[in-house]
Structure formats: C-alpha cells, structure tokens
C-alpha cells in the first residue's frame, strides 16, 4: 500500500530505519578468487584515469574500469554454476527484479571461527541457532557472519600450499537450507560462498552446486554483518544488468529497524 511505502521512506529519511552498507570498497588490493594458473582467471579490479581536470578533459574527472564479474562484493546468479545452467531466468539480466529485495537470517559463527579458519557450518549448528532466534523463513537470505571481513588480506584469503582455509558450509547444510528451508540464497564475508577447502567435498563447492542448481543466489565478500540483527534485516542487492551475466559486483544494503537496546 502506498501509505506504507511513504511511511517506510520517512523512516529511512529520519533514521528510524538504518541503512547499513554491506559492501567492500572496490580496490585493486582487495583479494580476488585464485584458480590454478593454467585455468582462466577472474580479471582483478583495475582503474585507469581518463581525465582529471587536465589536458585530457579540462573540467571533468572520470575513470575507466576493468574487472571480472566476480570481483569485490558480488552477486552470483544461478547460471554461474553448471548445475543452474538450464534454469529459466538464471542470469543477472533475467532474474525477476523483486528477488533483489529479501529479508535475511544472520547466523553468527564469528566466535567459532576466530581461531579456526576451517570452521564448517553444519545442520546441528543452524538448528541450535533456530532454537534461539526462530526458524529460517522461506525466501530469506542466509548470511554467515564470520568477521572474516575484518582480517588482514593474507589471513582473509587464507592461502596455504594445500589451498584456501576459510570458513563455509558443509554439503549437508546447504542442501538442507535449500530443500528443508527453501532459502533465497547464501551470503558470506569470504571470497566465495563456499568453504575454503570445498573442492574436497562431495559434491565439490556445494554452496554453488545446490544453491544455483535450485535457482538460488550467492553474495560474497560482504562486510558489516556484525551490525545486523539475527532476524529482521531487509537486504537490497540488485546486480548490474549484464547480458547473460553470471554475476556482478554490486552495492549491498541492509535496512534495519532501529533498536535502542542494541
């Protein structure tokens, strides 16, 4: 109803609803996913000045960018993974736009991850969370708070000679979130939605395989998840409308009702 929408706009303008930016700044230094060097690589974010009030353009400043679809804080569409390749409306340009707005359940495992980069999210862990905060509703984002976004880059990327060591979900819990909870998608603070060592899972990269296989979405390289309540945040996450895009860097905003007790 229009009156509700106007009331909402007033609440945002007046700060009764807070807008929290869940986006990392796009910089050249921010880690990008690394694949074995003989495979194709995601082009990292680069910025080249076109002009800056100089002989190349006296009164204006602008830049040209190069970047892969999966750089910085970014959205994964179902077409990104082979399991979602034949679904209808599976690319960033064809996903129905209302799906870019959805509420979130934020599962805090920052304490468990603090000294264990190999922390894996399991069904019992989520069930215990539901006992405290309520059941994850159908159509909700599940965001994994690990505080990984606060780490210095070498730890953030977690690369060792046997691959990345960063927290993420087990195959069981992803399948369960999709089938038993009918979630909207899965979001993380780490470079990918999957566990660092997820290539050794069965199936490999389950967050990609199961989520995208059922037309669900991914968000990664999120930040400020520590400012979100466990339930009740509204996520606005529209990716760029790239023709048959597999994903896109984007601005992710969370709307949270002001809670004086926090």
């Amino acid at each position, binding site marked *: 109803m229009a009156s509700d929408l106007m009331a909402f706009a007033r609440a945002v303008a007046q700060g009764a609803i807070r807008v929290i930016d869940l986006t990392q700044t796009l910089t050249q230094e921010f*880690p990008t996913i*690394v694949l074995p060097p003989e495979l*194709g690589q995601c082009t*990292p974010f*680069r910025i*080249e000045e076109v002009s800056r009030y100089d002989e190349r353009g006296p009164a204006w400043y602008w830049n040209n960018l190069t970047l892969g679809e999966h750089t910085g804080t970014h959205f994964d569409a179902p077409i990104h993974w082979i399991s979602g390749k034949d679904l209808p409306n599976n690319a960033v340009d064809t996903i129905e736009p209302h799906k870019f707005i959805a509420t979130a359940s934020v599962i805090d495992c920052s304490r468990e991850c603090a000294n264990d980069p190999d922390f894996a999210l399991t069904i019992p862990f989520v069930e215990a969370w539901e006992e405290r905060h309520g059941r994850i509703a159908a159509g909700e984002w599940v965001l994994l708070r690990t505080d990984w976004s606060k780490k210095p880059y*070498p730890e953030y*990327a977690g*690369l060792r*000679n046997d691959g990345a060591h960063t927290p993420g979900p087990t195959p069981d819990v992803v399948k369960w979130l999709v089938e038993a909870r009918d979630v909207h998608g899965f979001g993380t603070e780490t470079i990918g939605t999957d566990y660092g060592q997820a290539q050794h899972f069965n199936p490999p990269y389950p967050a990609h395989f199961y989520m995208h296989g059922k037309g669900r979405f991914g968000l990664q390289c999120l930040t400020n998840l520590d400012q979100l309540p466990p339930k009740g945040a509204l996520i606005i996450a529209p990716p760029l409308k790239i023709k048959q895009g597999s994903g896109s860097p984007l601005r992710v905003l969370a709307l949270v009702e002001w809670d004086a007790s926090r």
Partner: protein
Amino acid sequence: MSVPLNPPKRKDPLKKTRQPLFPQSTRSRTAQGLTAAAAQGRFELQKCLDCGTIIYPPRDACPKCLSARVPFAPVDNGGLVLAETTIHTSTDSYFRERMPWRAGLTKLDCGPVVLSHLHGDVREGERVRLDLKLDKGGAAVLIALPDKETPNMADDPQLREMTCDPKYRRVLITDGRGAVGQAMARSFSDAGASIVFVGLADPWKPFPGQQALSKIPRVEIVALDVTDSESVSDQAKQIGGRTDIIVNTAEHVRPGGIMQRHGLSVAREEMDIRYFGLMRLAQAFGPGMRARGADGTNSAAAFVNLLSVHALMNWPQYGAYSAAEAATLSAAQCLRAELHPGGVKVLNVFFGPLETEWYQTIPPPKVAPAALAKAVVQALQRGLEELFVGDIAEDIRARLAVNPKALERELAG
C-alpha cells in the same frame, strides 16, 4: 690500481641536481657499425675484403685499395700505447664538468693507430686492450683498458661514465615472486647495489622462496603491481627519486598460438603485464630517471627489459606470448629514445626457454634464472644495450642474420 669508489654521500638537498650532458655524438651511418658492435660488447672494425687492411676511423672505401667492400668484422683488440695526454681544459660542456680527462694514441696489433679514452691504470708504452663502449650519449667510443685486470678497475671514473655498474646504485627488481626476480635480487646484491628494492604484487598470495628473498642483504620488499597504474605511480612517489636501475622481471609465459587459444583473457593478461606493464613503469619512473642521469656516483643508469628471443621471430608454440614480447620490444626501443636525453641506457636482454615451470615440457637447452641474472649484471658492468643469453638465443640471432624466412618456416615446425 684505481682509487676505490667511495659509497656516495647522502645528497645535499640545497644543491641543484646537475642536468645530464653528453659528448658530441653525431656519427656517420657507416660509423654506426661501431655502435652495433659496442651495443653487444663485440670489438669490430672495418676490414677490407680485397686487401685485408683494417680500417679506423670508419670510411666508405678502403684507404689503401679504394675497395668499397669494407664490412665490420671482429678483430684483435690488443695494442701498445704510443702517447698519452691529460686534458685539463675543454670547451665541451660534458668534458668541462669531468676534467681532468685522459686520452691517448694506441697502435693496434691489427694495424690502425687509434685515438681513444684511456683507463686510469693505463700508461704510455704499455700493452692495452681496446674496448668499444657506448658513451653517455649512446655513441660508440674506444677506451684503452689495462692488458690485465687491475684492482678496482671498474671504479675508474672514465670507465664508469660508460658503464651502468650496479655497485653503490639502487636497483628496482619489479617482481620478486618468480625464480627470475629472486635470482636478480641475489645477483644485484652480490654486485654491490646499495639497495635492492623488490616489487611484490598481491602480498596475500604466498610464494616459494619468500623467506629466502627477504633475507638477501640490502633487499627491501616494496608493494608494486605492474598491472595496476596506481600501484606503479604510488611506488614511484616513494622510491622513484632514488631508483638508479630498473630490471623489469614481471613476466607471463603461457603456451599457445593465437588461433588455438580459446578467447582473449590470457592474451590480455600477457599484454597487460608485459606491454602495458612496461608503459606504466616508463611513465611513473622514466621522467625521474631521465632527470637523474648525471646525479653523481649513483646516478640513474639503466632500464633493463627481459625479453624472449621470440620477440624477434614468432614461435607459434608460444605464439601469443611471442607477439606480446614483440610489442614489448618495440616499446623498449621507444623507451631507449625517450631516456636518451638523460644518458640512461636501455638494456634489452634476449633469451630462449628458461628453466622455469612454464617451459616444463620444453627440452634443454634452457637458461637457468641464476645464469640469466649473472649475465644481466655483467652486461650492465660492461655498459651493453643488447644481450643474448644462452644457446637458443644465440642460435636465433645467427639464423635471423642469415635468412629470416628460413627461421620463420623452421620455427613453425
């Protein structure tokens, strides 16, 4: 013996940095034959094919038999100093700043009597070796060197004007992640460079040799990513005013031709790292180096490009890579012209497959990174502009000189 070079004092910030000057450098087209030999460190003079006379200075006809068949050829460089002179005054701006300067006449064993610069350890009546060098202006000149190595020989001020010796200079190795960059860091440290800056991109990615690299004496790891214009210009703001030699070790070797490659992603990476990488370094560091070409003992001296010899002729097995190398070589030639007003040399180093992971399937002979690094340091100590390292590079150079079309066919396999 030469007076050993003192470590340069810190600069007096109240003093103006002297602008680079160089000696008169106009040469006839024929005399550029000396330039070609000096650039690669060979001693060549003209030799008459009809009467065998060795000719100096360069002429278009033999002074004895008037034959026009007078190509440059390697000749013996031994001789005897007939007369020496110490010059105390000159109207030439370059020499005025460097007085006194020694010159002398040498009777070469192969015939001609030549006027040349004299190394400080050379005396009248002594045996010498004549060497062809490129002076500050890039012109080929002769210098008489002691017959046998003398203590601190490279520290002679006249000789040092013609070389790019890393001793007491500050070197930037642009990428220390690979075996070549790490070998360079070791070689330049051993050669007495006062600081060896080693660039590192994506410090969050671990790499083999990381520990050992940081333990090399006088190595300082600096943030540098040649694919990122901002990173290169930011680092130039930090160290650009005290970078005397740059060795661009950023590489991106990948097999594959241009048709067989699936898409352009890898080719873009190659061009970005190699061709655009060189351009970013040139824009950020070049002007500062050009302005510091005469800045005392540790003046800016050289920009070193490491190039596949297949920059000169495409090797389809690594065809897209060869093309990126050819683009890089062309840019390096442009850079040479742009750095010339500063008396800063561009050394282009050509080599075949290296003993590194991306040439894993290629059979020997391959060039070991340590051998390449040693050759680069020696080339700078000699003041060369072009260097071919290893059997493959020498072979390609020879075949290219004889029949480029045959080489193209043979490399196509």
